[in-house]
């Protein structure tokens, strides 16, 4: 085989291998512990700017402290747990990215190997997350989230409908990790609910245990 043919064969074999393994090789290094440095209001939008549908408005107005899962020591899940005032550890593997939150020990698996949610996957508080790289930006799509959840702890609702989903975009600039999350929930929102987050790289950071005692939810 001549040199040109040999190079062509190598390229072809490599492309086929990547296609069949489905591994999306990391385009940026997010690995490590990140300390929260979120914008005001924990990165949530000004409540007055959120455009709820009439059904969403009714749900919002029916909210009470007894419905806040975190005050009952239940994991916030998604979308409620997209940002929180605690450190986050990120572990990057070829087939998945792990988001290990100190808050409630929440663990998220972002599958990067091209798989989709299996048919048997039931709606859950954290949903099912898949991701891909757009240049150096990690794009995560989460579906199958439980209707027993909220978008924010002030009562902004989340329907859990089949057509509802969340898109997250993470990007690293030096020692800063920024994030934008879009909650797409047409039953309750006229337009996507957008939240922003920011973390600082903390090579000496620590993830602490988060034991939670419901009697100290402190809502009365």
């Amino acid at each position, binding site marked *: 085989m001549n040199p040109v043919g040999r190079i062509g064969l190598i390229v072809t074999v490599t492309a086929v291998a990547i296609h069949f393994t489905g591994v999306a090789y990391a385009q940026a290094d997010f690995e490590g512990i990140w300390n929260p440095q979120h914008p*005001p209001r*924990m990165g949530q939008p000004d409540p007055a700017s959120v455009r709820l549908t009439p059904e969403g408005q009714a749900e919002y107005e029916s909210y009470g402290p007894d419905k806040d899962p*975190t005050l009952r*020591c239940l994991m916030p899940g998604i979308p409620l747990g997209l940002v929180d005032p605690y450190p986050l550890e990120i572990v990057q593997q070829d087939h998945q990215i792990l988001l290990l939150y100190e808050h409630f020990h929440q663990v998220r698996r972002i599958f990067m190997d091209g798989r989709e949610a299996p048919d048997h996957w039931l709606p859950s508080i954290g949903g099912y997350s898949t991701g891909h790289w757009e240049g150096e930006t990690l794009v995560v799509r989460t579906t199958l989230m439980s209707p027993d959840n909220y978008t924010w702890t002030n009562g902004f609702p989340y329907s859990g409908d089949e057509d509802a989903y969340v898109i997250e975009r993470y990007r690293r600039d030096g020692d800063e990790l920024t994030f934008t999350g879009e909650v797409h929930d047409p039953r309750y929102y006229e337009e996507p609910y957008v939240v922003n987050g920011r973390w600082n790289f903390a090579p000496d950071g620590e993830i602490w245990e988060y034991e*939670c005692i419901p009697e*100290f*939810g*402190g809502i*009365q």
Partner: protein
Amino acid sequence: MLFIGFSATAHHNGATYFDISTELEHSDATVVSYDLVNPHGRLVYVFMDDEGNEVEWRAELPSANNARRRGLGGDLFRPGDRLTALTGSPSRSGANFMRLTRVLFANGDVAQITGRNAGVVRAGTE
């Protein structure tokens, strides 16, 4: 009981459960109990109200993890401690309950409970 103006720093769900547009202050209180746990710490204290009756209040603190990272540890209060003044935002429920923002100890130390400058300032070091 004294109400004073307050410029709040948004923090998690505080405004949902507490009226952070205002603050109240309790003077000459005595600590009954203190638990620094997640999701929120809790201080129970008593003081004499304007009618001379002893009343018991509860105060919410940040989570144990966030408080400890700011130097507000589990030994911040002990039963029987005298507190010169406690400041916080009242619960929207109307209960004897507030979100604690600041404490002045009898020895002059000040504990800032919430906000980016949370921590203990020792008397004479400010």
